[in-house]
């Protein structure tokens, strides 16, 4: 028993080695960029850290930023476990957002009771939306990367059209009606600023994803299909049905993310709506090795950097965009394991072991 625990810890440690090295390298590179802008890297980084975790408000901002990314990260991770690349998180999130914006207003009279109903509806629309590329792949062999990318345009534009035409509120601000505060996800309080209980829902979603993948028959099948379609077929599992389900479940996660943004942050769907949450989910999943726990950590890093960047820009002249550079370098290093091997020698790679290929390979 304790040997198993030790193995699990070593596994987890090994999985963290690469991302941590990548983060360290990116900060070193970033320091040179800060120097080039004529600022002191230490000042800039201390502002960055202060802005991310330096105060309850800062932490609240980090959690707020991480919340949707956990959902979209899970959308990528679950599909990836079935060997599929879900690039459709953006469109799926919009589908969830418009579902919540419409139903949130419609069911507002139910008060807080409407929240679970609305989110459930997001699960359904996201599931159906996510199933489309799954069916296209299982039935016609259309590559899911292409179809999910294309469905992004359709999803974003469909949601935007609905928000601008049939569901448009009266008044000057383009978008849907504001949802009554009683029917929104409440703030956590505790001085955490605008952080809301959506973050706890995101953590719950990560737990659900974990249980689904490692504790259910369906998850067993999804993982088997992802790791070895040949062996899954040999064992009598349907490749097609698992392809459809993995993408559909991924879609549901992203759509709930969109719903939580609407119910917890904006209270409506504005046009333009928040962008890139779906795409950043890909980075989060990559960083988190497609494991729910990793996704949570990855999303917190993304959220923290975004939050810290505001403070950094405020107290130094370093532009916000520095954090994008840091993230880009981190992702580059996490994906390009060979590059890290070249930079740091084989030992770093050996430390992380074969787990790397496990997370990213194929």
């Amino acid at each position, binding site marked *: 028993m304790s040997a198993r625990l030790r193995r699990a810890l070593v596994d987890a440690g090994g999985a963290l080695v690469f991302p941590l090295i990548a983060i360290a390298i990116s900060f070193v590179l970033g320091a040179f960029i800060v120097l080039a802008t004529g600022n002191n890297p230490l000042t800039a980084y201390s502002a960055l850290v202060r802005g991310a975790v330096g105060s309850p408000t800062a932490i609240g901002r980090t959690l707020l930023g991480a919340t949707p990314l956990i959902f979209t990260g899970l959308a990528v991770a679950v599909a990836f476990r079935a060997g599929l690349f879900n690039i459709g998180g953006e469109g799926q999130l919009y589908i969830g957002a418009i579902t919540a914006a419409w139903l949130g207003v419609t069911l507002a009279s139910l008060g807080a009771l409407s929240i679970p109903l609305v989110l459930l509806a997001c699960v359904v629309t996201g599931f159906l939306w996510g199933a489309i590329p799954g069916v296209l792949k299982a039935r016609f062999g259309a590559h899911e990367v292409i179809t999910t990318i294309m469905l992004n345009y359709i999803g974003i534009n469909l949601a935007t059209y609905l928000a601008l035409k049939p569901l448009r509120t009266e008044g000057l601000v383009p978008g849907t009606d504001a949802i009554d505060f009683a029917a929104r996800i409440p703030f956590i309080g505790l001085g955490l600023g605008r952080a809301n209980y959506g973050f706890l829902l995101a953590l719950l979603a990560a737990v659900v994803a974990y249980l689904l993948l490692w504790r259910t*028959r369906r998850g067993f099948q999804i993982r*088997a299909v992802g790791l*070895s379609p040949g062996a899954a077929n040999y*064992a*009598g599992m349907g490749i097609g049905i698992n392809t459809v389900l993995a993408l559909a479940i991924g879609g549901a996660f992203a759509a709930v993310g969109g719903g939580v943004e609407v119910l917890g942050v904006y209270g409506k769907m504005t046009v333009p709506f928040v962008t890139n949450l779906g795409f950043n989910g890909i980075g989060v999943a990559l960083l988190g090795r497609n494991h729910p726990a990793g996704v949570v950590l990855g999303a917190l890093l993304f959220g923290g950097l975004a939050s810290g960047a505001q403070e950094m820009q405020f107290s130094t002249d370093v532009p916000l965009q520095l954090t994008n550079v840091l993230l880009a370098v981190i992702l580059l290093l996490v994906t390009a394991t060979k590059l890290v091997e070249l930079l740091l020698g084989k030992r770093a790679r050996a430390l992380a072991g074969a787990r790397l290929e496990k997370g990213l390979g194929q």
Partner: protein
Amino acid sequence: MTEERTRGGTAGVGAPVVLEMRGVTKTFGPVRANDGVSITLGRGEILGLLGENGAGKSTLMKILYGLYSPDEGEVIVDGERAEIKDPKDAVSRGIGMVHQHFTLIPALTVAENIVLGAEPRKGATLDLARAIRDTEELSERYGLRVNPRTRVADLSVGEQQRVEILKTLYRKARILVLDEPTAVLTPQETEDLFSVLKELVADGLSIILITHKLGELLGISDRITIIRDGKVVETVEAAGTDEGALARLMVGREVLLRVEKTEAKVGEARLSAEGLVVRSGAGAKAVDEIGLEVRGGEILGVAGVDGNGQTELAEALAGTRPAESGVVRLDGEDVTRVGANGRQERGLAYVPEDRGTKGLVQDFSLSENNALKTYDEAPFSKWGWIFPKAMRRRAAEALRAYDVRPPDPDARAGSLSGGNQQKAVLARELSGDPGVIIAAQPTRGVDVGAIEFIHRQLLEQRSQGKAILLISLELEEVRSLSDRIAVIYDGRIVGEVGPDATDEELGLLMAGRTGGEKGA
């Protein structure tokens, strides 16, 4: 009879030494794949390189061919220290390699394949006429008959192998390495290959032959170097040894090369097929109207050269590939429309030919793999949930019972050796007490010790009254285990013989020549 043995491979070469590998060491992480290996090769000699899977033969040859660089040790070609960094260096030193899996381009002709990368030019363009002329010249000189204008796609496997050899000769190879060359050949094609090899050494070439088939090595090689656990155990003269002695050296203990078989107690038909037609992934008719019947208590062997429909036959019988037409029956019940899962529940076990991509999920733990087919049944599952603990407990028992090393349910399947992986597959398939067993190449790429274990298990199942269909490319295996042998050629069963059939009989059938056509 005196056995002349020489240690370490420095002596015993009558002719001048053309190649020497000295103290070669290569480690992969904690594994010492080669540990101070030294071999010598004389001019005009055939050196057999014998060892179990994972003993380090391939690593050594990859070092020689510049695919790996050694941690220690040196390679000496023609008395000169050779720095071989990549295959190009190896080729320029006159070293040629024929890989187990061919590296030909099917759409190109024989001549084009042979000159590819070293083309004769006329101005800026390929001098095709010269390529054809050169190919013809070479093929005539060494008796490697093949038409330079034929597309490689239209060649038989044996002919493709000749093209591979010609490719190395065209690049002026003086040292030829052949990796398991007979694995894909019929007995007759093997004979042809060996006579070509003799021709080559008579012409002054030197050959290293990698194989695990003991009998073949004795017939063709001059000396045999045995490698075990990355070290040279011994180098022996082929003339002064026998199969038993070689097997002992290779495995490190006494090995039963032939399993003892009791009289068959044949019962009812348990697995049968009628008019079975199956298409391959590419759409070709891979199984063409096959009918067969396996009864309880017997082993029906299916012999044949690789790629004659064995894979599709096994998959269609097991239910992992749809049959286009025909009927499959399990214990009398028509299961043609029943999927793999249903057939497994009806008592069908299936050891697939490819444990790497079918039999096991390499990145699953052994306990997950052990439950790969029963994850949805009690006690592993209830109401859609699965119980890893129960899986682990059951796996631990099964792994111990089938001597899988390590017997650790949490170990990743891919971390095990080939033999242990196969034992893990066997543990899963046989522990459910199936009535019918389809074993497709159950010992491919498995070490001698594990082969013995697997053979015993199959015979044990036979004596329990199970019906066993054994599909194998290894004639020896089919012959020693089967009660009847069906020969498959081009998707059809072309004949059935007893286990005492001669090599020649079997070989002719495997080449598609049925009795009636023999005289014609």
